[in-house]
């Protein structure tokens, strides 16, 4: 029922590599690559400066490493979204030395998300970023270009069509096809990580 997902094994490798030895340097890099932008994004939403975002990411990594043996991430107990949120908010409040109540896993266990919550905003951006990075490998150049000009940059369909020498219908089609794929990609990513 619960095949270990890739992010679960990544988290496990943060404190011990696959041979059960010390911290796995590769795993740290991979974590930073995958979740660094998310944690920095959250930090900025909470008003942190650039160097403070660096510290935040560092602290999250440290507490994940230290916490792991006792406080192991269990995919059955809560989703990655809640878990990372807990760890990140704790790291943030510790580094700010504020009286922010320490948040436990139970406190954030409710997956019903408030769209205005800074964490939820950052988390959705995390999924969207991942999906956008995948699109370039899945669609022909022209389709991506049309999608980018028309949907992301908000140009007129007619202008996009003229720039690319394609019909307006093809521009609409590009939007529909790419958007449908983004929905699938984000859906899969959410199903995996929460």
């Amino acid at each position, binding site marked *: 029922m619960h095949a270990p997902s890739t992010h679960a094994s990544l988290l496990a490798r943060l404190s011990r590599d696959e041979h059960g030895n010390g911290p796995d340097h590769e795993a740290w890099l991979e974590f930073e690559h995958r979740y660094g932008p998310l944690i*920095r994004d959250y930090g900025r939403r909470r008003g942190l400066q650039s160097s403070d975002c660096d510290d935040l990411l560092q602290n999250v990594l440290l507490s994940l490493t230290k916490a792991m043996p006792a406080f192991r991430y269990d995919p059955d107990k809560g989703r990655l979204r809640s878990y990372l949120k807990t760890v990140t908010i704790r790291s943030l409040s510790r580094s700010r030395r504020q009286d922010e109540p320490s948040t436990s896993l139970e406190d954030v266990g409710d997956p019903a998300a408030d769209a205005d919550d800074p964490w939820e905003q950052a988390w959705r951006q995390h999924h969207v970023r991942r999906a956008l*990075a995948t699109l370039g490998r899945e669609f022909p150049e022209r389709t991506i270009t049309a999608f980018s000009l028309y949907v992301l940059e908000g140009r007129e369909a007619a202008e996009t069509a003229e720039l690319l020498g394609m019909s307006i219908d093809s521009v609409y089609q590009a939007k529909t096809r790419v958007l449908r794929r983004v929905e699938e990609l984000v859906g899969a990513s959410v199903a995996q990580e929460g």
Partner: protein
Amino acid sequence: MLESEPKPWFQQPDALVEHLRASHRADSSVPCVDGYEDLVPLQRGGQGHVFVATRIKDAKRVALKVFHQDSFSSRSTQRRFEREIHLVSRLAHPNIVRLFHWGAADDQRPFLAMEFVDGQSLGDAVEELDVDAVIELFLEICDALGHAHRRGVIHRDLKPSNIRVDSKGHVRLLDFGLAKPVAGAGEPGRELSATGEFIGSLPWSSPEQLRGDPNEVDTRADVYALGVLLYQALTGRFPYDVDTSVADTIHAIEHTPPAPPSLHNPAVSRDIETVLLRCLAKEPARRYQSVHELALDLAHVRAGEAIEARRDGLGYALRVLIRRHRIASIAVSLTLVALVVFLIVSVKLLRHSRTMERAANQALIEKRAEADKVAAVNEYLLGSLVGPNQAVGVDNVLLVDALDAAAAGISSRSDPAVRADLHAAFAFWFLALPDRLDAADEHASEALRLYEEQVAPDHSYFAWAYQSNAEVLLRRGDSSLAHDFLLDALGHYRAAGSSEMNIAQVEATLARCVFALDEPERYVALEPLLVECLGILRTRMGDDAPQAKAIEDVLQQVRTRIAAH
């Protein structure tokens, strides 16, 4: 059934588009870059954004180019980018904008810091200039491009906005080699996903760039772009209609012959027209083969002399060479040619066997590709070096002539790996000949460029290319750059587990650089390398070998200089 729950956010198209746009905008925001402040947006392009900023340590104004987050998403594109940057950062030429520094902004976007040039774009600058003044500017551009080409850097994206003319009227080239670093093999689509940039560069792209195979693109793509720019500067128009759709423009670049420039501007002389049309040839082989050749003809035009473009390239050169060397006997020349072929082929085979040893554990298919490549190189060398002599028959053709004729045909080989090896081999041969430094230079830089573009080049080949480039630079008096290249060569030889003699040879050459540079800290760094070199020579050749004795003397001098400081 209960009424179904509201759909999750990613299944609501409007919400999803909002999130996508937010992500896109975040990519366009002003980043924090360590060491720089007061970032003011200057322009945005498909690849990223350019800001004017202040470098904190000396309050200098610089231009910061910040790339999009996913520009270098794969490791291989990242590596290519870093290699290219490494080469570009070594360009030191008064007409090339200096690259100071690169790294990652706080949000991990890669950035470059470069010299900020206030001035106008080439397009605006040429409006008030007469033909001679335009040619003067283009001679400066050629000089700068030649400097870069010799160091293995192709611009790839020359256009008016990448050529600034400063307040003193001098040209400054921007965005060297960076324009399309992401068009890596195996990753189609990267280039076009940088939307605006691609469309913006289209009119100056060469036919081979539009075909999309990065291996096909070499320094002659820059010659083509210069042709378009010069055509524009002199006539105010493009050589073909580019105001149509992207598809039509691509078709025109690939198939429509340029309209004669004299149609638009009667002041364009027949000679300039010939120069322009030669630059704009659809086939790279029919263009000027280097910016140096183009510059020579532009200088001829300026001086009112006959231009080279009128003459028939290789045939003409061969005839001149044959005439010049008539004294040599057929027997001598044929022996020399045979010797050259034998030596080159044996060098290749030796290298091949070493490669094979190392590759013993690699996949069979790789071995086969390597063997095919060596076979292709040998076939080429035998065919082209012996062939022309048989064809020329009774004429006296010297070694140089045969080498020249063979070298001229390298570009016809389609496999870039084979071309790279051939250029590397010819670089060494031209280095061994008197007065052929220019040819050696061209082959060495072309070999380096081709190796740089390979996804996973073999270390020993790479080292070979670096070594020949260093030798060229050293002879041209650029000891500092030669020194860097030799250190690179050394690193690659070590990584390849190469023969100790190669390492010793590089270390001995490094000593020449260090003495030419004569800086205390370089002597200190050189000392342990010379100790290693001496050890290798003694083991391999004996304690009393003259080579070992010579290095012993050099080492003594190095130690004396270290002590003196």
